[in-house]
């Protein structure tokens, strides 16, 4: 019983981590039609900002709160300077964002000297339930992920900003004719996706420590999640992330971890083969 509870918590917490990473990726992929290969590096930047705050004696939670805003601002600037030029050519956009990610990753590697650096959690330790100990910080991550997920959903489905984002996705020319500035909507959406990545990085860094490949580590899982979930809606990638995250965390409990690692991708490929549109098909929220 205790062991089952511990297993459930570990699986849920890793699922939440993957969902958190995929949120921004999914919003950019679904709402803008761009696969952002630099998304992992936005996660890394969020983690790096948190580390910078900590190493300069600023409380960790201040760094965590600042990370989404700083990364979002950077996303806004990059969209205006670079990403904007790629909307007509999604394949080139993949290469362009990959290059961008490479530049960010190697710069951070230079800055941290290739080391693995620890950042403490603002709320550390573990919650003891009888003989079972669960990590307090992972519990916090589950709660924050749930809140952010609900917040994003409400933003896209219930606000006029969300309506304009969806209008821009569905029919850009009609949106423009109706007086929506699609350029600024794209800029804001990209910045929002980047900010979510920054938040993910800030929350993850106490769990996984800071290293240059932190972001790229999640990139493949993130893209598989988006493919499994289905591009075009907000819910699709999130559902995909929940499935992939849960599978990656659950399979090692029942088989050799090396085999589990491969099986997740095999299952994803088989699933996409039989349901190419993903779990949730169609546009919308």
């Amino acid at each position: 019983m205790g062991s089952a509870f511990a297993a459930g918590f570990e699986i849920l917490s890793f699922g939440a981590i993957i969902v958190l990473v995929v949120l921004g990726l999914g919003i950019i992929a679904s709402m803008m039609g761009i696969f952002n290969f630099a998304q992992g590096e936005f996660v890394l930047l969020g983690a790096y900002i948190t580390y910078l705050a900590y190493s300069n004696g600023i409380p960790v939670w201040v760094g965590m709160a600042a990370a989404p805003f700083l990364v979002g601002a950077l996303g806004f600037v990059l969209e205006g300077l670079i990403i904007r030029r790629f909307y007509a050519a999604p394949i080139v956009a993949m290469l362009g964002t990959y290059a961008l990610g490479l530049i960010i990753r190697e710069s951070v590697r230079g800055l941290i000297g290739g080391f693995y650096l620890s950042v403490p959690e603002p709320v550390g330790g573990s919650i003891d339930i009888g003989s079972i100990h669960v990590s307090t910080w992972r519990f916090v991550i589950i709660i924050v992920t749930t809140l952010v997920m609900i917040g994003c959903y409400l933003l896209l489905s219930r606000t006029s900003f969300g309506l304009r984002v969806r209008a821009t996705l569905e029919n850009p020319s009609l949106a423009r004719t109706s007086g929506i500035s699609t350029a600024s909507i794209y800029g804001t959406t990209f910045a929002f996706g980047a900010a979510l990545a920054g938040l993910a990085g800030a929350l993850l860094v106490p769990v996984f420590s800071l290293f240059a490949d932190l972001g790229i580590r999640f990139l493949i899982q993130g893209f598989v999640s988006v493919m499994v979930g289905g591009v075009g809606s907000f819910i699709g990638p999130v559902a995909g992330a929940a499935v992939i995250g849960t599978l990656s965390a659950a399979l090692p409990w029942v088989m050799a971890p090396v085999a589990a690692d491969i099986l997740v991708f095999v299952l994803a490929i088989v699933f996409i083969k039989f349901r190419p549109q993903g779990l949730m098909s169609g546009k919308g929220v």
Partner: protein
Amino acid sequence: MFSDHNYLSRRRFLSGFASASGALATGVGSWVVRPDWANAAEGPIKVGIATDLTGPIAYAGNADANVAKMVIKEINDAGGLLGRPIELFIEDTASNESIAVGNVRKLIQRDKVDMVLGGITSSMRNAIKDPIVARGKTLYIYPQLYEGKECTPYLFCTGPTPAQQCDEFIPWLIKNGGKKFALPSANYVWPHTLNVYARKVIEANGGEVVFEEYYPLDQIDFGSTVNRIISNKVDVVFNTVIPPGVGPFFKQLYEAGFLKNGGRLACVYYDENTLNINQANEIEGLASCLDYFKALTKDDPVSARIQAAYDKDYPGKILFAAGSAATGTYRGLKLWAAAVKEAGKVDRDSVAAALDHAKIAEGPGGPAEMVPGKRHCKMKMYTAVAKGGNYEIVARSNGLVDPKEC
């Protein structure tokens, strides 16, 4: 719109051609450290260092390059070898085997070095040993702790072997931890081979291995592993999971109450660099067994002198640490220098014959000597325990420990 810029003018072609051929001739990522008196009558003796100056383990490679510069400068300042200065050639292996082979060939064919020292991972050693030893007909020294079983002629190992890291360490762990061992490991050659040896020593000393499991190298979530360790009431986690996984793994173990229940962490590559991956309280009591710890400088004047010389020349984050092969590099260069002195010449066979039984009285952690015919190095070994973010030496070997290889 910018079509006029696309014409390749003669000037543009020539300047591009010149810089490209310049890069080809000098090589990208090559460093030459020339002594002041490099034009001595006979010309300098050439030492090649091939190490990971860039890539994920650049912190280790740069430490090794720093140690090489320090040792070679010291030898040159003391009059060189055989009346000749030493010229140092440093090439980047970039944590990438195919780049490494190309750059090592440069050392052998273009620079014609008399000896190559370097490589940190076992896959790197396997990639560059053939270009150096077989096709390059040059002496090769490998400085890192590793899984053993490297018995190639003209290839000398100066880092600790499984026997040196396990024979005294595992009995200590059984006494100061318990009998039930778990062997969580990264899925590559070093953990696989080391675990075979470790399991033998554990069982010979009355311990038992509760489980041995291998993980993908980039796995960073260890929920199921931690659960098995806790529910099996494991006493000692003998870890060979490597970064980036090791930080999250130790953290999850800590959060699950492994240390609180009296569990002992053990990891034989843990040095001063890797201490920073976790908060100090998450790895309190972690035990490691290496040929050198900075804590030794308190009671060993030779180690203190070497450490001070390094810190003076290279202050900052690139540490002089055993897990980065920095101590193996120091030992390798000094043993080679002793061999060259004894041989009186620098051709491969004479130096290899002298290196086969070379000895140094002073090195980081103590003296060292090659075991004749084995091409591995006897050295002192120390067991240290992490306390509040630093190591404390808790056990030391009686004299030099045999590598038991080849």
